[in-house]
Structure formats: C-alpha cells, structure tokens
C-alpha cells in the first residue's frame, strides 16, 4: 500500500523523466562562435547577427 501510494505520487509529479540513449536525427545547424551571419529573411537585409557565448548580438554591441 505504502509502495503504491509513493509510486502514485511520483507518477503525478512525473518530472522524473527517464534517461536513455539519444541518437537523434542530425542536421548541421551552424551558429558559429564569433561569426556574423546574414539573416536574409529579415526586414533589413543588412542586418547581421553576431553569436558570442550563445548571445545573439548586434554587431555594434561589440
């Protein structure tokens, strides 16, 4: 009984997702560090995105 209730509570909380092996589909989605990438679908075709330590910056931020 005790076991069941604990388990049920756990199931409700559910955050404890399982681990497992990960072999996902692949596509090289480059966001190269320190490079600027022209984003052609933007309103301003001169817009440049700078990726630094994961931050998406404007060139003038640096």
């Amino acid at each position, binding site marked *: 009984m005790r*076991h069941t209730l604990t388990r049920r509570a756990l199931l409700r909380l*559910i955050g*404890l*997702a399982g681990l497992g092996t*990960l072999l*996902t*589909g692949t*596509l090289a989605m480059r966001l190269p560090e320190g490079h600027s990438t022209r984003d052609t679908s933007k309103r*301003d075709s001169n817009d440049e995105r700078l990726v630094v330590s994961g931050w998406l910056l404007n060139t003038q931020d640096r």
Partner: protein
Amino acid sequence: MEIPFASLGKPGDSVDVCVIGTGAAGLPIAARLAERGHRVVLCEGGDIEFSERSQSLYRGTVVGGAYVPLDTARLRYLGGSTNHWGGVCRPLDPYDFAAKPATAETRWPIEHSELVPYYGEAAQILDVLPIGPDSELPGSGLRRIHFSIGESVHTRTRYASTIRDSPRLAFCSAANLMGLETRDGRITSARFTNYEGGVRDVHARFYVLACGGIENSRLLLWSNRQSGGRLIRNADTLGRYWMDHPHASIGQALLFDPAPLGLDRAYDAFFAPTPHAMIARNILNCGLRLHTMGPEQNLALTEDLTSLSPSLKQRIQTMQASGVAPKGIILRAAWEQEPRRENRIELDDTRLDSLGMPRCRLSWGYSSLDVRTLRESVLMLGDYLRQTDIGRLKLADWLTQEPILPPDTGELVGRHHMGGTRMAASASQGIVDLDCRVFDQDNLYIGGSSVFPGCGHANPTLTIVQLAMRMADHLDARLLRQTIV
C-alpha cells in the same frame, strides 16, 4: 451504474455502444451517448483507484531518442491520464490542419472548421478559461498566443454521478480489452479479461476504442494479428506516424523593455511563428514559452551580458541609475513534431505483459525538421529582440553545438501521445476515416489523439474532447437512423 465483471456481456443484453477506456476521450463519449438515450457499456481495464497490477501493463521499451518510461507517461485506472494531466489547454491552429511546405504529412483530411462547433462543449467539460485571440508581433514572424491554464479536470470526478446513477450507462472496471472479433467488415464482439483470468465477450452495435495514444495502436496491432489481418486489411500505417511534443529549455533573455512582449504585466508569455513565417522558413509550428526569472538569476544573466558588451553595460548602468533593472526571462519550447513513418509503435514479442499480450515497443526520435523548427523559431525571437533593441537572447548551450542534439535529460516531451491510427482520406494513407471509423470495419471507432495526422504545438486534450463530442453526435445520428429503419 457500476456492474461486476461477471455481469459484463450477459446473454440477452442489448448494447448500443461499447466504449473502452475512461480518459479524456472515452468517458465524455460514453456519457453523452447515454444522455441521448442509448445503452452504453463502458469498460475500464484499470481499477477504480491506482493499482500496480494495472499500471504494470503499461510498461514497454523505447528505442531511438531519449523518452520517458512508458509506464510513467500515462495512468491506467478510472479517468486514465486525466488523473495527472496539467490542465493546459489550447485548440489547434487552423493552419495545423493544412499540408505545410516542410511536409505535407501534417495535413488533416478535415478542416479546422469541422471542430469549431464542438469547442464550447469541450471547453465546458474541461473547465477551459477564455483564451484570447492571437496577435502578431510586428516584423518578427511571431504571434503572441494564449493558453488556458486552470484546474485540471479529472474525468472520473466530472462524470462521477453519471457513472454512479445513469441507468443507461453500465460501467465495469478491471475489464481489459484483449481482442476484437470481426466478420464481414463488422465487429461482432469485444473480448475482455479481468485479473483473475475471467473472460467476457461484449456484443454491441458500435464499438469505440479510447485507450490512449499508445494503447489504441497496440490493441489494434494485437487484434489485427489475431484476426489474421481481417480487422485492418491495409495495416501499412498502423502504429506509424507517431508523435509527441518535444519540450526543452532553450535559453534565456534579458529584456530592456518587457512591455512589447506583454511581460510587464504577466509572469508568462507565449509566442509561435505565424503561418507566413512557417511557410517562409519551411518549418512546423512551435510554442515558445517565456517565464520571468528570479532576482539572483536575473543578476547573473545581466553580468554575463555586460561582461561581453561594453556598450550594453553602459546602457544597463544608465537604466539602473534611473531605478529600472532589465528583466530576465527563462525560455522554454514545446513544438510540433514531424509525422514520420519511422516513429512508431510495434508489438514486442519478446516481452509479454501479465495478461499475455506483447508489450509495446516505441521507436521515437527527432528529425532534422524537428530540430530546424525549434532553431528557426528561437532565432526569430532572438533577432526580433536585438533588432528592435527590446533585449538580447542567449541560446542554451545545446543549441550552439554542431550538430544540434536535443537534450537527453530534463523535460524531453509533453507526454502527448499522438498518431499511430491516423485519420486519412483513404485506407492506404491511414487507419480511420473522416468520422474516426476504422476503414475496414463498419462499426469500430477510435477516440483520442492517436487519430491526429499532424499535431501542431498545442496540448492535445481539448482537441481530443472536441473530436469526442463530434463522434458522439455522429454515433447518435447513426443509432437513430438504424432505429428508424
């Protein structure tokens, strides 16, 4: 009214509809049909309360990508997974029903407008709060969207009095569906077993299988095998095109001006690409979830950004001098998964459950489109923030790697089990027709998100209940027609 297992399928019983499963799909259908005067038998494989003997039947294996254990991703007792769902609701977008340029497989054979008449009833059943209209975030390719985040309704509670009192609804627990008998394109009986080895056959005019987004496929695969392939003659897509909504933490943002995102007033805000942006960027739908972060995290994020950018440091210092601090945001996403043949449910003949049925084996993983959908959506938000100078976005580490491999720990998925018995215009493309009727069987219907051909990014249960109400109307009309004839 509740009946014991021994009374199930008694000779001479005339049953209009046998509904199997008591979750978000099964119970509303059964209750609605009983309300309309039809005789319904409602069978639940689990017990009234949680039990290990029932829950253990949900164990299975997953191959491919990281997923949650199958017996923790759903509940198997009266009320099904509504006993632990989160109550987050939003209807699918009209564009979710279309073939998208990125893949035509997302196309539903019915229009969004087919479900609109059932929105009110479904919203009432699930206590859905009013959901505001989408509004475009000018120039971003994104629209602000809304969810109903209220109390989560458990079907067992919502329909407690129907189960107890309705003279036309006979409810039986611990009645596990084990197979469907078919003759000349009609189901002639459904076989149930309890945990003590008892077996009962139920004969009804119509059958509704509503055992959840994994079991619907598993039970049909098993029954089809037992029938020698006569249940579903073209079973090519059975169990396939299975989907969940991937969930992940995708980064953080620092906002200099939270007002344009609506975060000056709210703790959370939600965004998704516009249909136009989905077309232009060749991606699927994606829900971006923005949550305000605590003060310590906010400070750390501010320091992180100012250490990289002297000009932003100066700007933030000026802001702070006038008593305004930038606002830190935690970013999460839940997005539409590409319907692919490879993601599928199969019978695992190497592992049988305690009732003797092969357990489920789920093959699941991301496609390049799944990854691109997320990446493009988060870039849209990041670019909007820096171009309008509202703020700056920082990608989670895993999104800056090459190739991008979604995380194998954490939230992973929504536990929204969709596809496997998809709705289609013809038997070569799916398992059920536009009325959710199994193509080769005149009287077998499927309830639940296993019929979704495409899944948008919205949580599925509201759509499940809309479809359930639509099916109840359809069956009601068929039963009335037959009675008149």
